[in-house]
């Protein structure tokens, strides 16, 4: 994953807000990559751009040789469907559907036949330890359980990258630990994970490498032994 000069500028009323400012990065396959920063530092924008949900104002993102910044809407949909899995702070499960149906959802958009996607979704729920609760709706599940359903869903299409945006932000510390452990386990099995959090100690604990963002720029990079302020900071 190669980012070159990645910039995202929002218009807020009359003012222009630079969420990301000429970001250059390379993230290797199989990494557990963390992004930390305060709210407004640009970390969510970073994740949305990487996940193909948002489009860059300038610069390029290249994932496995595919230039996201030049892709059409449909190509981005295909990228989201096949290459990435999202895990959100708000879980973002569809309330009217059971855990199983939620996990099946990405497979529905990928045109997987019903029997096959059901089998795959059951496997994934078993893997996150929710096999017996597959018929429950999100409202009948605890926060931790909902997040585990969301993780199962993110893995449905065997994505190359997992994008987790504050996955433990709405969980108590014990549950958060179990979710973090689940992500670490996925990473040990070879899954690339990109984790966005404001919790620097957590990033230090779980990530193989992490950067700290401030005002859209990289403040520190754990891969650089001595943290240096970036040019112009």
């Amino acid at each position, binding site marked *: 994953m190669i980012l070159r000069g990645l910039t995202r500028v929002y218009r807020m009323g009359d003012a222009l807000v630079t969420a990301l400012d000429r970001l250059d990065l390379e993230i290797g396959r199989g990494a557990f990559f963390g992004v930390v920063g305060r709210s407004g530092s640009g970390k969510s924008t970073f994740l949305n751009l990487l996940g193909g949900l948002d489009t860059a104002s300038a610069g390029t993102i290249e994932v496995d040789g595919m230039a996201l910044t030049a892709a059409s809407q449909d190509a981005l949909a295909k990228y*989201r469907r096949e290459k990435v899995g999202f895990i959100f702070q708000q879980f973002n499960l569809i309330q009217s559907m059971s855990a199983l149906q939620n996990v099946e959802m990405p497979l529905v958009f990928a045109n997987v036949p019903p029997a096959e996607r059901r089998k795959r979704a059951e496997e994934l729920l078993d893997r996150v330890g929710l096999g017996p609760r597959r018929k429950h709706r999100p409202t009948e599940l605890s926060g931790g359980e909902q997040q585990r359903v969301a993780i199962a869903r993110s893995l449905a299409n065997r994505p190359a990258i997992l994008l987790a945006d504050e996955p433990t932000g709405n969980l108590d510390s014990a549950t958060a630990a179990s979710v973090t452990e689940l992500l670490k386990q996925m990473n040990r099995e070879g899954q690339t994970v990109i984790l966005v959090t404001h919790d620097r100690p957590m990033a230090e604990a779980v990530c193989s490498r992490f950067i700290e963002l401030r005002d859209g720029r990289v403040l520190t990079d754990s891969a650089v032994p001595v943290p240096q302020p970036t040019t112009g900071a």
Partner: protein
Amino acid sequence: MRVADAFRYSLGNLARQKLRTFLTVFGVIVGTGAIVLMVSLGIGLQEQTISFFNKVDILTTVTVFPQKRSTSFMSFGKPVGGAPMKLDDAVIEEFKAIPGVQAVFPNLNLNGRLMIDKVEDGKKKTVNGGFIVYLGLPQDALTPLYRDALLAGNYWSEENPAEHCAVVPADTLYDMGLGPPLAGKQKPGETPAAKGDPRWKDVLGLEVKIQFNMAVAKGEPPAKGEDEKDPEGGPKDPGEDPETVTKRVTKRFKIIGVYDSANIGNPFVPAVFVPLEQGKELMKMRGTRGGTAEPGYQQVMVKVKDASRTDEIRRELDARGYGTLTFQDVVEVIGYVFVTLKAVLGAVASIGLIVAFFGIANTMIMAILERTREIGIMKALGARNSEIRRLFIVEAAAIGGLGALFGIGGGWAIGKGFNLVTAWFVVKRGGPENVHLFSVSPWLAGGTLTFAIFVAVIAGLYPAWRASRLDPVAALRSL
């Protein structure tokens, strides 16, 4: 996304908001129900009108004119120019030679007033039976259909060439207080008659009078009573020549038979059947059109053996240069009238569906506002914009389809209810049993369903487009 998945998701969402879905669907039910009810009234009236004309007899009849006749709606039956052909006895023989022709005879077009002298309470009294068509028929026109319709007495025949005889319809006689009623026409306490009912015995042999008004040349003596001598010198039709006057002529006949006019005779006015020669006699009295040396008939009736060959024989006569009209032309003209009627009724009823259109659009926009986050989730999971669009269009179409199914069923049921009530009233008042005012055809049902789905899809287009255009990041951030 598979089509089945799109349907399941859309229908599932409709089930989520049951009350709102019901209210929106109800709008479609009212709209489509009104369309079905109104248009089925048009279809029912059309069927009733056609069935009124649709006597078996008429399907095998081609009416031949000397000139081509218009079959258009505005000028139906009017001559459309061209040199008139002559219709005389020689031509009649030619027509008889056409394969498939049963009988050919001139339509003498005589209308009169039917009267019978009765003796009631010792007093002589004249009962007026109203207007009647005086139809001269040759022997070969008395097909099995005509024989079957006979209820009492007999037709004239070669062995029995009754002088001044007539076969009259049972209904007309009953209305004049003579003979028994037919089934369905009886008043309470009366027994309907079957074929050969002895109650007609008294009627047979009775004398009837028919009073004709005839246009004759001026200078003829005014009508006194009956059997005025033939006017000479070729009088002309009224309206063509101011030199004519109307003369009243009364003829007397003996009733030799009674028939049931359900399937034969004139659909508008009851007809008295008389031997052709007897009719021609009266015709001579009236004189002939234009007073030419070799007069021709104004109309010739060609009876076809089999109704399926009517059109073929009609084309043959057309090819020979004559003007022709058949029942099919009448049905087509009725069709024009009713297409207009049905269109107007349908358009009025469509207002309901227009209202439903806004209901559907409103419901869909609400659904999208409610599900903004869900749309964001689906986009994050890799849904294409076109798939999001399809989901909402399917949802709108389902509202239209569901409403139409219930609306069509409801409209049909209400029409059926009205039919039962009207049929009950009609039968109670002695009318026929098969009256129905509302009739739902498969075309109406299918058309209404398609139209409702079409309207619903149009109503869903803009909301669906808006849903598909939502920015996923913003959508995910919404509540």
